[in-house]
């Protein structure tokens, strides 16, 4: 099991899922209509390190963070 958490303005509780790669996470999140407006604008961190390759392998206990568009300052 891995955990997926949604940061900042995405009003959504963390979810757990089985996933071997980031591609599996992508496929499952696309099924969630509340995320449709977000996915194409969001970046992804795996255990707090930014990742941008769908083939990234995941292991039990990994934490995937979904980061929507930012505006610090």
């Amino acid at each position, binding site marked *: 099991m891995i955990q997926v958490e949604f*940061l*900042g*303005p995405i009003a959504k509780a963390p979810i757990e899922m089985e996933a071997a790669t*980031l591609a599996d*996470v*992508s496929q499952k*999140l*696309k099924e969630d209509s509340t995320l449709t407006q977000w*996915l*194409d*604008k*969001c*970046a*992804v*961190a795996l255990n*707090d*390190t*930014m*990742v*941008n*390759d*769908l083939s990234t392998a995941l292991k039990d206990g990994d934490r995937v*963070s*979904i*980061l*929507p*568009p*930012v*505006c*610090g*300052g």
Partner: protein
Amino acid sequence: MELYNSPLDTKEIFGRWLDEHAESNYGAYIPFVGTIRAEDGIEALSFDIYEPVLQKWFDDWQKRAKAIGAVVKMAHSIGDVPVHTSSYVSAVFSPKRRVALELIDEFVEDFKANAPIWKYDVKDGERIYAADRSTPMDGAGVLS
């Protein structure tokens, strides 16, 4: 890197960073102070920060700065920051003027583009995500 649950005490931060490097022999010190503008009837801006990724972003910048003999600093507020108070101070120190001027520009621009911080307008006590002023981070869209 310094995070505060309040507006920033800009003078204290400016002076403390100055003192910290008083004997470091840097010829140029350039702070950037970001202050909340009164516009569109907002009372305040409010910020969420994801600290673990911000810390890594900042650590990477410290390494980049060190490689060119410079130092970067930053402070940011979490939560509500009223108009005409400051939410963000960053700074560079460098032996050389040109390095410092180029570094503060790159550092502040990359901060705007990639620091994991989310901004909300506060109007009538309500927090509204500043979607139109926000930017997808590098690598955004990988899951879509």
